[in-house]
């Protein structure tokens, strides 16, 4: 599935949450959709799901605008953080509704996953714990068979083993039937190895959009003496600088695969989660 975003802007009253954003996402792939709180992620995902209209600009899936497009909306399954299901219905009823809505619904998989997450069909949403409701969201997303499946912080209240199970199932389903999975999460260290593509939103703009492997090679942390460090940085962008025990450290974003550093500099790759933390520290800085 091809998702084309052009000059997309979303404004609530006088607050611009997305500011003329343009990018393409090409599935099938597992895409990490990251950004700190208020970066515009959920607004974008709501628009991608066709639930919210853009203020200006367009989102097209396979060349068609998504907003209020009934046929296209069936191709997109959006699992939000909370509020995915009415409180008074049972799990069994949720599955029946899903089956009616999603053309590629996989009932067999849903049944199997209910068992894996220890859920019972007769239980009502209002009587379930947060983690159990999250599990039902995950089951819905995976069994929907939707060519675009969005998980926006899907595991609120789930423990580490539940989340691990989710990651395993996601990879398994993607291998069996490649789709476009968009995973938005703050638990980046846990999930980052799943990503093929990473998109980082920052204050309503796209700050980074690269294959995960490129991020690992192009964004590096270099430590050493100031003069050598400056020489190595050259014209590349610096995301963060610091000094500890007289040693200078810079997190550098190279445009391309960087040249070899002098042996006196220590080079480390940087974890995505740490990168996010540094980016949110530099809120006002313009990068990329």
């Amino acid at each position: 599935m091809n998702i084309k975003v052009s000059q997309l802007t979303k404004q609530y009253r006088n607050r611009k949450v997305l500011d003329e954003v343009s990018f393409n996402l090409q599935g099938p792939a597992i895409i990490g959709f990251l950004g700190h709180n208020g970066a515009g992620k959920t607004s974008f995902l709501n628009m991608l799901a066709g639930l919210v209209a853009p203020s200006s600009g367009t989102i097209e899936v396979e060349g068609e605008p998504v907003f209020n497009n009934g046929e296209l909306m069936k191709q997109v399954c959006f699992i939000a953080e909370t509020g995915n299901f009415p409180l008074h219905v049972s799990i069994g009823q949720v599955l029946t509704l899903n089956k009616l809505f999603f053309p590629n619904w996989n009932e067999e998989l849903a049944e199997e996953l209910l068992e894996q997450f220890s859920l019972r069909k007769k239980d009502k949403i209002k009587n379930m714990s947060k983690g159990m409701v999250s599990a039902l969201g995950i089951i819905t997303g995976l069994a929907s068979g939707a060519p675009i499946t969005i998980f926006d912080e899907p595991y609120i209240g789930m423990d580490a083993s539940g989340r691990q199970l989710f990651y395993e199932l996601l990879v398994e389903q993607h291998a069996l039937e490649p789709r476009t999975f968009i995973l938005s999460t703050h638990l980046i260290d846990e999930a980052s190895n799943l990503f093929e593509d990473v998109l980082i939103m920052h204050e309503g703009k796209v700050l980074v959009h690269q294959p995960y492997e490129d991020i690992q090679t192009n964004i590096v942390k270099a430590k050493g003496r100031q003069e050598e460090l400056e020489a190595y940085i050259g014209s590349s962008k610096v995301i963060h600088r610091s000094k500890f025990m007289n040693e200078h450290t810079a997190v550098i974003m190279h445009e391309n695969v960087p040249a070899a550093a002098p042996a006196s500099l220590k080079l480390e790759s940087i974890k995505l989660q740490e990168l996010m933390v540094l980016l949110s520290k530099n809120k006002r800085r313009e990068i990329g």
Partner: protein
Amino acid sequence: MNIILEGDKPIFQQIKEQIEDAIIDGFLMAEERIPSINEFAKEYQINPATANKGVNELVDRGIIYKKRGVGMFVSSDARKILIEERKQSFESSYLNPLISEAERLGITLEELIDMIGRKK
């Protein structure tokens, strides 16, 4: 900036090694003040007691010393002591793995010496 510590060594030992490296590489000079326990704890995001454990080991070995109410300082012969210690362990840490990998690949000792000779 937080330095991410690796997972395979006890944290206090990594703190200790970071300080040792800074002294050996000349970032921290003799008689220079080193960061406080709280600064280490904040920088590496660890419990101050853990930072203290790493630092105290260096105090015990005479690499750094404490001045009450002032802070912690690098001893005058810290670098000398550390380099001596590292030389002692150089064989087991670097030479032995080098030789065993060379053997695995069928590189003879002569070839290995030749390679090293060509390096400089």
